[in-house]
C-alpha cells in the first residue's frame, strides 16, 4: 500500500530530496508545497496520509502551521512530523501535537522508515543501511551534531 506524503518546506532542494528519497526508498507518492499557506490548502484538498512540515518557514513558522492543521477538523487527523534544523525547548513542547520531530540534516535512505515508525506503519521498502533506531526524535548523523534530548 502506497502512502501519500505532503512535504511542506520552503527550500526547493530539500523538497526535491525528500520527494526522491521517499519515492525511491519507500515507493510512496509525494506532494509538495513551498510555503505554509500553500501547504495548508493542499493538505485540505489532498488529505494526505502524513505531512512532513518544516518548522522555520518565512511566511509562517511550522508550529503555527501545525496549530492551524490541528484546528481545522478536516486536517486535524492527519499526522504531522516536524522537520527542523533547530532544536528548541519550546519546539519539543509543541511536539505534543506533532507525531514526531525529525532533525535536519536527515539521512534520506532512512527517512521513510523513520516516518513509518513514528506513525506506526508497517515498515515498507528496503532495508535501510542503519538499523536499531526507534526513538521519537531522530538526531542528525555525524559526530558533531548538537546533543538531542530523548523525548517521548
Amino acid at each position, binding site marked *: 500500500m502506497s502512502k501519500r506524503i505532503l512535504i511542506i518546506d520552503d527550500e526547493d532542494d530539500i523538497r526535491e*530530496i525528500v520527494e*526522491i528519497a521517499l519515492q525511491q526508498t519507500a515507493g510512496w507518492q509525494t506532494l509538495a508545497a513551498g510555503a505554509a499557506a500553500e501547504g495548508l490548502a493542499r493538505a485540505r484538498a489532498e488529505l494526505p496520509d502524513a505531512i512532513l512540515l518544516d518548522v522555520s518557514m*518565512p511566511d509562517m513558522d511550522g508550529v503555527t502551521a501545525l496549530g492551524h492543521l490541528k484546528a481545522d477538523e478536516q486536517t486535524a487527523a492527519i499526522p504531522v512530523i516536524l522537520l527542523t*534544523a*533547530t532544536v528548541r525547548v519550546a519546539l519539543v513542547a509543541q511536539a505534543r501535537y506533532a507525531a514526531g520531530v525529525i532533525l535536519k540534516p536527515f539521512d534520506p535512505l532512512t527517512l521513510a522508515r523513520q516516518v513509518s515508525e513514528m506513525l506506526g506503519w508497517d515498515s515498507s521498502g528496503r532495508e535501510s543501511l542503519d538499523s536499531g533506531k526507534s526513538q521519537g526524535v531522530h538526531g542528525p548523523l555525524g559526530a558533531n551534531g548538537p546533543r538531542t534530548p530523548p523525548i517521548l
Partner: protein
Amino acid sequence: MNDQGVGASPPSSRRLRLLMIEDDAADVDLTLRELKRAGFEVEADVIQTPGEFDRALDKASYDVVLCDYTLPGWTGLDAAFELRKRKFYVPFILLSGTLGEEAAVDCIKQGVSDYVLKDRLSRLPLALDRAFQEQELRRARAQAEHEVRQRERHFRALIENSSDGIALVDPDGMVLPSTPATAAVLGCSLTDRQDRNVFDLIHPEDRLKAQEIFADILAEPSWAVPFQLRCRHRDGSWRWVEGVGQNLLAEPSVQAVVIHYRDITHRKEQESEIRRLNEGLELIVAERTAELEATNRELERKITEQKMAEEALANLQKNTELILNSAGDGILRVDVDGKCTFANVAAARMLGYSQEEFLGRDLRAIGLYTAPGEADGAGFRPVSRAAHTLGLYAPSVRRTENQVIRRRDGSAIHVDTSITSILERGQVAGAVLTLRDESERRAMEKMKDEFVSVVSHELRTPLTAIRGSLGLLAAGELAQQPGPARRMVEIAVNNADRLVRLVNDILDSVRLESESVILTRQTCSAPELALQAAELMRPMAGSAGVCLEVDAQPVIFSANPDGILQVLTNLLSNAIKFSPRGSVVRLESGSDNGNVLFRVIDQGPGIPPDKLESIFGRFQPVDASESRRRGGTGLGLSICRSIAHHHGGQIWAESEMGHGSTFVMSLPAELPESHEGVVSNGAFKCPNATD
C-alpha cells in the same frame, strides 16, 4: 644839682642859672649886665662866704658858677676845689682883675673852666659858650666811655661765665692765651696751653677731619664752621668736643682763629647709652615681633591646613559622589533600620524614581523587597527581606541573581543584586545594595541565541540538501535514473556553494560585528572601485539580462578598498537579482559636503516602507524564499552596513513600491594629508539603454 657823676647838659635857650660868688656889688652888676646884653636870661644867686656857697649848692642846681678870684677869706680856687670835691661838674669861670699867666695856668689845672678879666667882661659870654661846649664834649665823652666800659663788662661777663671753652689759635694751630673757661673744660691752667698745637690734642682718628675743618675755617672768614671731634683731656682721657670755629684773623681786636667748644662726652655717652638701650629695645621688639609672626604663621598654616583638609574632604566627597553617580550599576545604602540613606543616579534611573525620593524611604515601600515568601501583586519576587537582613547582620556579600524588580511605572527590570553590610568600628551600620541591570545583557544574550539558532538553521539547510542528495546517490538508489541522479549532483554542488557563501558571510558578519576589527585604509578612487565592482558583476548581469551602467564622479577618499568593493558588489548583486530582464541597474558615485556617495539604482519591484530599515538586519530579507532562491545568504546587507559603519559612514535604502529601489552609501571622505595624482571620471552607458 644834677645827677651824680654825669655832667649836666648846657642850658637851652640861653636861660641861665647862675651862682655868683662876688663881694663887690658893682662887679656883680656889671657882670649881670654883660650877660643880659649877650642875650642870656639870668637867674642869679649871689654869695660871698663859703657857708653861703655850701648852702647854695645844697639847695639848688646851677648851670654855671662865676667866681671872683679874690674873696674875703677865701679864693675862687677854693670854691672850685669845693665844687670838684662835691663832684659838681659845672662850668666854673673865674673873674679876676688881674691874673698872671702862671696863676691862670694854675687855675686851669685846678679844674677851672676859664677865667675872664674884669676889664674884659665882654669876653664873658664867649667864655660861657666855650665852657658850655667843653662841658658838653666832656659829658659826651664820659657817656661814651661809660658805654664802652659797660660793653666791656658785659663781654667779660659772658666770656667769664660761659661754660664753653674758647680757644684762640693762630693759622698754624698754635694755641694763643685762653680764657678761664677753656682751662676749666680742658682741665688745665690758664697758662698751660701755650706753645701747644691744637692738632696735638685731637684724637688721631679725627685729625684728618680736623685739618679739613680748619682749612675750611681759614678759607671762609665769614663762616662759623661746626665740628665734632675727640680731644685729649689733661687726665689723658679722650673727650668728645663739639663747637664752632671762625676765622677772625682779620679782626684787629682778635687776630686769631676763635674756637668755641664744649665737652659733649657726657652727652655722647648718654646718646650711645640711649642708642644701646634703643637697640636693646628694638631687639626685644624684633624678637617679640618675630615670635608673633611665627605664631601667626603657625596659625595661618594651621588654618590653611584645615582649609585644605576641608577642601580635600569636600573634594573626596564630591569625587565619591561623582564616582557613585557615574557607576553603571545602581547603588543604594540603607541604615540599620532598612531606610535608604543614599541612592546613586543609576539606581534612580533603573527604578524610575528620583534620587531624593529614596531618602528615608523603607526599600520595601518602593517595592524593592518583600518579606520572605511574599510576592507582590504582579507576581514579582523582589529582593527578599531575608536577604536584606542577612546583609545587615552578616558582614559578607550576598548575591542574588536574576531578580525581577518592579519599576515605578510598573514595568519589570531584570537585575543582578548583591548586598554587603557596612561595618563601622566593628558594628553593623547599614548595608549597601548593588543592582546590576541585566536587561541589556539578557537582550544581548537573547539576540545571540537567536543568531546562533538562525545561523545554525541556515547552515543545516544546505547541509541537509548535500547530505540528502549525496546519500541517495551513494546508496545507488538512483542508479537507474540518470535524470534524478544528475539532479542530485546539481543539488549537492549548488548547496555546497551556498554553504561556502554562507560560511564566508557569517564569518564576515561576526568579524565586522567585533569592534576590535580595524579595516586598514588607503587612498581610494571612487570611479576605480565603481568600475571594478561593475566588472565583477558583469557576468551575473549578463545572464540575468540586466544592463549595468556606471556614472562615477572623480572623488578621492580614504577607505578599505576590499570592504568598499564588497559593499558595491553586494548591492549590485541584489539589484541584479531583483531586476527584471532588460532593465538597467545604475551605479553612481559622487561627493556631497565632504562625504563620498555611492548609489545603486534598480528598476525592480521596490521595497515596502516597513522593511526599508529591517532589511539591513541579519537574515531579514524582504522575501526570504525569493532571496534564498536567488542565492542570497540573508547577511549581505547587514555586512554592508557593518562595513559602512566601520568607515564612519551610513547606508540606507530609498524605494517606492513598483518603482524600483535606490541603495545609498555615504562615507566621510577623510582625505589623507597629501595626495597627488589626477583622477579621471569613470562613466559609461549601456548601448541602447533607455533612460
